[in-house]
Structures are given as C-alpha cells and as structure tokens.
C-alpha cells in the first residue's frame, strides 16, 4: 500500500509558515526534509456509513492520534479520490465541542438537566428496567427499538442484535424513504438491481426522474456529464428546478405525483407510433399485451398533458427521443415515489423501460437501487433470544418480535396495549426530528417510562430521552460498508481511539449483556467480549469473498473492491420474479390489493383548506439530521429558508426574507421566505434538516400518509412525505 504522504505536508507546512519561517525558498527545501524524515502521519481506510448513494471510500490522515483531515480514496473509480461537502466536514463531527462525551441522564426528561453518569450506572439502570418490565409484563415486548439509517455500517446491525439478545421485542419495521419504489421493482423484476452508475457514461439519453443527484449522489454526475460529452441528452423531470435540473438540456416541470401519467402518455405515443421493442418485451415479460391494451383504450396525450401540466408536444418529444435514442437510461429518484401513488408510478416507468427495450442494456435501465453487495453474515445482528423468552405467539408454539410500523410510529406505538410499550431504544435514528407528525411523536415519547438513545449530539430525540449513550463516529470503529447504488465495498478501520467514553453499538450491546447477566444470568445472549476488528471479520463469508475477488477481509485494507458482477442490471434476463419474467401483469401485486398492471392511480390532491403542497426534500448541507449542526456547516448555511414562487408569495403579501407560517391541522412551522422561480407556482419547498440550536423542523405538518407500496419487500408501506398539504400566511 504505497500512498504518497505529500498531501498532509500541506498542513504541517502551513503551520510552520505561520510560525514565521517565511521564506519561499526555504519552504521548498524544508519540504523535502519533512517528506523524508517526518512521516508521523498514519493513513487509514474508512467508508462513509451514511444513508447516501455515494458511500464514499475515504482515506483518513491521523497524526499523534488526532484525525487531521479526510479525503476520498482514489482507488474507488466511483469515489475517484473526492468526497462531498459533508465528507470534508468530518473532523468537525469528531471534534465537535457539542459531542456527547459520556453516558448522561436527564431528570426530568426534557428538562435539559443533564448529568454525567458512568457506563456502569447507565447499563445497570437500563438492565434493571428491562428486567423489571419483563417481570411486570411477562416478556420484553414493552421494549421498542427504532433504528434505521443513521449509520448503515454492517456491524451497526448489532443494534437489532441487542434487542434479539434480550428476548422478543417490539420493532419499528419498514423504511421511510424508498420502499414504494423497491416494491414496484420487486413486483416487476423480482428485486431491485440498477446498472452500475459508472455505466451512465455509456448512455445516449438520460432521464433524471425526481432525482437531485447534484445534492444526493454527486459522484454519479461526472458519468452523466461524460455521456453528454459524447452527445447524450440529459433530461430532468422534477416539480423543483433543482441544482441538478439546472444542468439538464431539457427540464420538465411536472405536477407533483403525476409522473405515472407522464410515463403513460409517453407509452401511448410510443405505441401509436410503432416505436415499441416488441421483441424484448414479449420475450422477457408477462402481461405486456394486457398492459398495452390498457394504454390504448384508456390513455390519451391530451389527458396526460392535462394531468401532468406538461404540454402535449413536449410529451411527444420526450417519448420519441426516449424510444428512439439507444441506449436510454432512467434514474428514478426516491423523491419521486414519496407519494400515495409513488409505487404505481415507478411500475409505470418500469413498463416504459421494458416497452422500449432499455432494460438489461448498458447505458440503459430503469435504475433505482440495489442490495446485491449486502450479503454479509449479519453476525452482529443474529443473536438468539434467551431461553424461555415469550413474544408474539406464532404457529407451533413459536414466538416472534412484535412489528410496529416505522412509518406510523407515534400512532401505532401509542395504540399498543397488550403489552403496551414502556421503553424505547433509539439508535442510528432521530424520530423526533425526522418522523412525520412531530407533535404526536413528542406525545408518544412523553408516555414512555424510559427512553434510551445512542447518539453523538443533543439532537431533538436526545432532548426527549432519559439516558443518552455516547456513540463513536466511524473513524473510531471497525466496520464494513456497501452501497445501494454503486458496487464498491470497503473496509472501515478504527483510525483513532474512541473519543472520551464513546462506544460503538456492538460495544454497547456487549456492555448491556454484561450488566443484564450480572443481575439475572442468562437474560441476555449477546457476547460480553469481542474485539472490534473480529466483529467485522465475522461478517464476511465465501459469497462476499468471491463477489469481491478477495480471500479475506484483510485484502480490503489495500483498497475497496468492486463487486465482480455485471455492470448491467438484468442483462442475463434472469428476473427474480415467481415467473422468472418481468411481471408487467403481477399476480403478487393483485394479491396484495394493488393493481396487477401498471395502471394510473389518482394522485392525492390538495384541499380547499390546505391548498399548497409543502415539499420537504433532502438538503444540500447535511444528511437528514446529520452534518448541518456542525460549526463549519452552520457558518456556510446558517438558517433554513422556504422557497416560494414569487407569484404565490405575492398572493399572500410575502416578501423576500419575511417569516412565513406554514400550517395545517397537524401542526405548524415558521420559516424565512426566499422568493424564487425555481419552484412550481403551487409548491413551496424547505429542506429537512436539524440546525444547531434551532426549533426548525419541517415535519410538524407532515402526516404519516402511507405510500401505496413497501410491505412486500420491507414489511411496511412507505410514507407519502411529499403529499404534505398546508396553508400559509405571513408570520
């Protein structure tokens, strides 16, 4: 592993220069000396474990045990040696003065009266409570875990493992962000697989459908731009003229939630003008003719134009171009499916890809996500329940965990009675900040007897917790990471010692096990000892080894590896549906109460009382409630705004910089207005985030309206985040 150490010399030299050795010639000479003798800097391999397409391979520079800076690993052709604005902020996360250093307890909950406690006291308190609840209710079902994407590192499935190891518990099941699209592709293709994003460079026509990859997956953009250099046309379809859409050759401002209608309009044109790839469609799918029949009989371009707000001639142009330019790729963004008909809209777009023969082609595909490189052992998660554990009764005297909808968390938890939920374990998650219906979430938290949260900052969930346990950052822990978009897998080394008394989720599990078994032997099956590196080693299996072309996890210390699978999704035609074909007509969907065919399902409409759609997409300066609170990020982006079209603003007498009260029957939020014509005239936009010391939270008005799909592959339907209807007034 020969990595030049020149990069960090800049820092050393800058310090030297500012100390007064100010001679340019001398610097040159001193440089060489430093390069030869003073290599006290160590480099490590890390992988950003955030919920992000790019999942960057990182190189961290550590000097005297201190993380000096983080860069991208050039060995990954996707990361290409560069991070993003968030990745470059990592030292500020590790060394933030706001970082939670020790286990803390807050009495009373919500008072801000935090007191440091020892790990022993923390684990004992928690263990005692678990055992007390078990005694009171006869099971550990009153304990509810909510964990999701705060850290997607494989060993962080140790959080689920923690729960399993104490018995059967209540689990928040599902995923809020992307399940409707997952189900759609599961119904159609059998599972989600996307073309390698690097393959986008081979495309001749790219539709970015509801994707703002300039903010959410910037490393894919260069490949898209390479395609453009070769003459490809880039189209962006989005209700918002995002930074991504600003780069498109053609930007189409669509009425939110009508994407399926646009796709159907395109399909009608393609059908009428004999541009269908019958060979591909009939050879690889079932139910295609039935769907074609539906399109012929029910869809007109006039209808599509009216429904979507897109002029007929533009639909025609788009359809013709997409159908005749080969290969043509579609990137379906997750924002697009956060509607009540989101899953159905993805199914329709899938069908569009099939009808034009773009599925299974290099430079083509209807690309959404994949989980092909996630086949680890999940050893940290797979813990047996203690003997004699009781849970939700199943067949043949078996028991199981109790599932509660992560996407309707507050309501469903409060509705449970047998037994009720009395304790929350929150890790890699921030429901008070991120969940819909904040007021109800707060109410639910307040009804708990004990709330334990594992986190690094006093964020909104921690503020409503009784005990907070300090989490390590990924630089302080061993882990392995895969991406759900690109095909690289990387090892994450412990680059620095855990800060203060922080522990990783697996270390917390081991500590809890110790505490519980001390009070009641056998009450927790989680191992009480274990080396962090070994925990990672245990996640690897032959499948992963052969997929990555390695013989041991240690090979990844030399650099991340790309999975040895086809860069073209479905090139082999081996669809993973029950029939083995693309199921345009899908029985499973029908069985689950959904339309069998990719037909149009009406979108949710605004009401007279709440006539404005309030979209709350992903921010630029953070990932959900992470990063924005850090000092550099707060300096660059001090406050949130709500983007309002000037025509809409004028109707309410709102001027640039005025505070706007955005409200509905659920709650309200006040945000400063920024007038811009880059949003639709009837859509206001504010990016969800947690700003340090700010009450800002867009979720007060968001209802837990389910998206149409998600149950099949993820256990629960998704959330129609962008079907958020409000009224506004100048505050």
């Amino acid at each position, binding site marked *: 592993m020969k990595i030049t150490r020149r990069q960090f010399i800049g820092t050393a030299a800058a310090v030297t220069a500012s100390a007064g050795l100010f001679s340019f010639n001398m610097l040159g000479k001193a440089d060489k000396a430093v390069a030869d003798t003073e290599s006290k800097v160590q480099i490590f391999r890390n992988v950003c474990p955030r919920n992000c397409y790019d999942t960057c391979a990182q190189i961290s520079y550590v000097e005297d045990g201190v993380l000096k*800076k983080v860069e991208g690993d050039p060995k990954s052709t996707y990361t290409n040696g560069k991070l993003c604005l968030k990745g470059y902020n990592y030292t500020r996360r590790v060394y933030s003065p706001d970082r939670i250093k020790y286990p803390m307890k807050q009495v009373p909950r919500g008072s801000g009266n935090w007191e440091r406690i020892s790990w022993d006291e923390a684990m004992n308190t928690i263990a005692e409570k678990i055992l007390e609840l078990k005694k009171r209710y006869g099971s550990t079902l009153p304990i509810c875990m909510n964990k999701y994407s705060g850290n997607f590192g494989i060993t962080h499935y140790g959080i689920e493992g923690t729960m399993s190891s104490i018995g059967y518990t209540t689990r928040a099941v599902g995923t809020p962000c992307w399940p409707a699209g997952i189900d759609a592709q599961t119904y159609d293709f059998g599972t989600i697989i996307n073309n390698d994003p690097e393959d986008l460079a081979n495309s001749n026509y790219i539709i970015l459908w509801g994707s703002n990859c300039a903010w959410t997956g910037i490393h894919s953009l260069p490949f898209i731009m390479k395609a453009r250099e070769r003459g490809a046309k880039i189209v962006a379809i989005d209700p918002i*003229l995002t930074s991504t859409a600003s780069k498109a050759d053609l930007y189409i401002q669509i009425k939110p939630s009508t994407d399926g209608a646009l796709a159907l309009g395109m399909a009608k044109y393609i059908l009428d003008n004999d541009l269908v790839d019958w060979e591909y469609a009939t050879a690889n799918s079932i139910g295609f003719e039935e769907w074609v029949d539906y399109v012929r009989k029910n869809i007109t371009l006039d209808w599509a134009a009216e429904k979507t707000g897109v002029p007929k001639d533009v639909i025609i142009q788009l359809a013709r171009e997409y159908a005749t330019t080969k290969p043509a790729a579609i990137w379906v963004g997750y924002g697009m499916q956060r509607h009540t008909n989101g899953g159905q809209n993805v199914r329709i777009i899938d069908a569009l890809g099939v009808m034009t023969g773009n599925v299974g082609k290099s430079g083509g595909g209807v690309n959404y996500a994949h989980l092909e490189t996630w086949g680890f052992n999940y050893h940290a998660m797979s813990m047996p329940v203690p003997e004699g554990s009781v849970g939700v009764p199943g067949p043949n005297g078996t028991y199981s965990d109790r599932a509660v909808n992560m996407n309707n968390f507050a309501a469903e938890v409060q509705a449970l009675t047998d037994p009720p939920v009395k304790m929350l374990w929150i890790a890699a998650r921030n429901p008070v900040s991120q969940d819909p219906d904040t007021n109800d979430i707060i109410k639910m938290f307040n009804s708990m007897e004990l709330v334990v949260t594992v986190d690094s900052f006093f964020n909104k969930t921690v503020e409503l917790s009784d005990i907070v346990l300090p989490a390590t950052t990924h630089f302080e822990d061993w882990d392995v990471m895969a991406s759900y978009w690109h095909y690289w897998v990387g090892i994450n080394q412990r680059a620095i010692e855990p800060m203060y008394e922080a522990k990783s989720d697996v270390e917390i599990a081991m500590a809890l096990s110790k505490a519980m078994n001390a009070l009641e032997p056998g009450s927790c099956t989680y191992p009480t000892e274990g080396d962090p590196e070994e925990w990672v080693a245990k996640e690897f299996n032959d499948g992963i080894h052969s997929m990555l072309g390695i013989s041991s996890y240690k090979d990844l210390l030399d650099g991340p590896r790309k999975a040895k699978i086809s860069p073209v999704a479905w090139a082999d035609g081996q669809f993973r549906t029950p029939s083995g074909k693309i199921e345009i007509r899908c029985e499973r969907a029908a069985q689950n109460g959904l339309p069998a065919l990719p037909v149009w399902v009406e979108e949710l409409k605004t009401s007279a009382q709440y006539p404005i759609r309030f979209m709350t997409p992903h921010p630029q300066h953070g990932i959900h409630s992470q990063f924005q609170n850090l000092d550099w990020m707060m300096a660059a982006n001090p406050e949130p705004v709500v983007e309002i079209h000037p025509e809409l603003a004028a109707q309410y007498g709102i001027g640039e910089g005025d505070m706007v009260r955005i409200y509905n029957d659920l709650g309200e939020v006040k945000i400063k207005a920024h007038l811009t014509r880059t949003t639709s005239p009837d859509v206001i936009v504010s990016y969800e985030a947690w700003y340090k010391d700010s009450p800002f939270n867009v979720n007060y008005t968001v209802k837990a309206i389910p998206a149409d799909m998600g149950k099949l592959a993820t256990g629960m339907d998704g959330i129609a985040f962008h079907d958020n209807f409000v009224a506004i007034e100048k505050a």
Partner: protein
Amino acid sequence: MSKQLGFLHNSEKCVGCRGCEMACKNEYQSDASVRWRQVYQLREEDFALPTRIFISVGCNHCQNPECLRVCPVGAYSKRVDGIVIHDQERCIGCKLCTMACPYNRPQYNTTVKKVEKCNLCYERLDRGEKPACVAACVLEALEVVEINEELDYKTGVLKTLPGMPDPKITNPSIRFIGPKQGVQIRRDV
C-alpha cells in the same frame, strides 16, 4: 520569469455543491469564522431563465491587490507567479484589508484575531499538486490557470459574470466560463 496564476471557474459544470469550500477547510482545518473559499449562487434575475447558477471564489490574487496596498504592516506580498500571500505572523488584525477587498476574501479569524485568506495552496503547487479545491471538485469545474492574453482570447472565457464587482478595481486573476441554460418547460408561463 513573471506570470500570473489564477482560477478558471466553469459555471456550466459547477452545481454549487460546496465541495471546494469544504475541501479547503478540510485541508487547512480553518476556523469556523472564516471561509477562504466561498460558493455564491448568482441572482436569478441576472440571467435569461431562472436556474441555479453558481460561482466559486477563493482569493483572486489580483494584479492590483487592494489588500496589499492598504496593509500597514506589509503582511501581503505577491510572488513572481502572481500568488498573493498573507503572512499571518505579521498581521496585527487591523481589518483594513477586509474593508478594501471587493470580494470579501481576506476575513478576520475571530479566534486568533488575525486575518486570513486563500493562498492558492502555494505549498501544494510548489510540490506539483493541485490546490485542495481544484483537486476536490467532483465535476472538475475549477482549474488553476495562467492568466494571460492567450487565455482571454479563448472562446467562452469571461472576465466577469453578472453580480461580480467591476474587475477594473483590482484586476482579479479569475476567469469564468459562463453558465449554459437548457430548455425549460415550466408551469408558471
């Protein structure tokens, strides 16, 4: 041999992601009170169609640097390659340079109580490496160039963009490739 190094920023490629800003901060671990490089979103009304258009500005290493002229302690110096360097050792924190620069590039670091600014990563350049911002740009929208007539005669290379101060004030060593705007199908027309 005297030349003038500077930045070429391509707004056609730039998506305003701020990777360059933060890569600079990452390289120097600079104080939260200063932003040596800043991304600005230009005003919608200055362009034909509303889109999100960005420029990224570090120090412009001007040919007539006001900071250098006004500094009472001579903390600024200009190298033969045109890079304007601020010697923080000499700085007394009088902040006159922060008043004099039309681009707000020298900034007062409230922790050390002295001014600092982008130094075109001269140490990296001297080692044959690209500046941190240039190296970090995912879309390759930033380049270090030699500001000369040859560059200025190239098609598409602009001395200024709408919203930038008059370049005649300090003759900044920054050039632009202007943004391109595609076809927009909008619902507000």
